[in-house]
């Protein structure tokens, strides 16, 4: 039994998919699940914020994966393919919620077209907590795009394929999302600065 478990762990994702399709044995699916369930769950949780909903989404995504496994092209990366199912599913579900009016749309921002893609964030030190707060203020599409690019290291071409848009559209959306993230990031800094100055004023007032 131990020999089987060890050999399963050495298989690549793509080999496991092939073995599951040909043999229909659950242990190959279980191996894939153990590799990716936490990652998919965390992505869902990042987007929906509610553990129960993230669990439901993870369940649905893996069921969808099973039904779609036959269409998986073995020259593609399994992780990219699974993440594309994850992002598309989450975006679709959250759009339904937005249409119902449960979440309000975000304010549009204008970004100069000539802005350099790499100079949107030029600070040496970016504070993680503030970045998290700034991310929380972005809409699902913007968050998804930034996660695909910076968390999953997907190329512009791969993102374009997942979203079904052109590469130039992805570049423009990325630029806008980063500009918005930067704006939100500095807004949190400004807010904290204002809060601090008000606190100092209050302390001064209390002392006097």
């Amino acid at each position: 039994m131990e020999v089987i478990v060890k050999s399963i762990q050495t298989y690549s994702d793509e080999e496991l998919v092939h073995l599951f399709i040909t043999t229909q044995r659950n242990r190959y699916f279980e191996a894939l699940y153990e590799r990716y369930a936490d990652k998919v769950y965390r992505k869902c949780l990042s987007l929906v914020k509610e553990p129960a909903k993230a669990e439901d989404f993870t369940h649905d995504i893996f069921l969808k994966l099973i039904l779609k496994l036959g269409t998986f092209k073995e020259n593609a990366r399994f992780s990219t393919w699974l993440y594309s199912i994850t992002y598309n599913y989450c975006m679709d579900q959250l759009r339904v919620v937005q249409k119902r009016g449960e979440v309000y749309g975000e304010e549009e921002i204008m970004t100069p077209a000539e802005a350099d893609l790499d100079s949107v964030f030029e600070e040496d030190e970016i504070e993680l907590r503030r970045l998290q707060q700034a991310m929380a203020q972005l809409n699902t599409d913007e968050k998804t795009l930034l996660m695909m690019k910076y968390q999953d290291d997907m190329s512009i071409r791969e993102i374009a394929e997942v979203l079904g848009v052109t590469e130039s559209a992805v570049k423009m959306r990325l630029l806008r999302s980063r500009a918005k993230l930067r704006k939100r990031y500095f807004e949190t800094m400004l807010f904290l600065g204002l809060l601090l100055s008000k606190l100092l004023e209050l302390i001064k007032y209390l002392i006097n």
Partner: protein
Amino acid sequence: MNNLNELFPDLEPDAHVPAHLQKVLLSEIDFIRDSMQVVALFTSVFLDTALLSVVPLEEK
């Protein structure tokens, strides 16, 4: 922008998928597979029977 590449992986929440989800999924996969086998079996039996009932009529 290098900062973002380094920071984004840390933005993921440190959470784990509930353990029971794996069992739920596996039982659903088994159910789907079994249902498909039943449908396939029923269809083949139905078609075989239909074929057998048509052939003697033609011979008569």
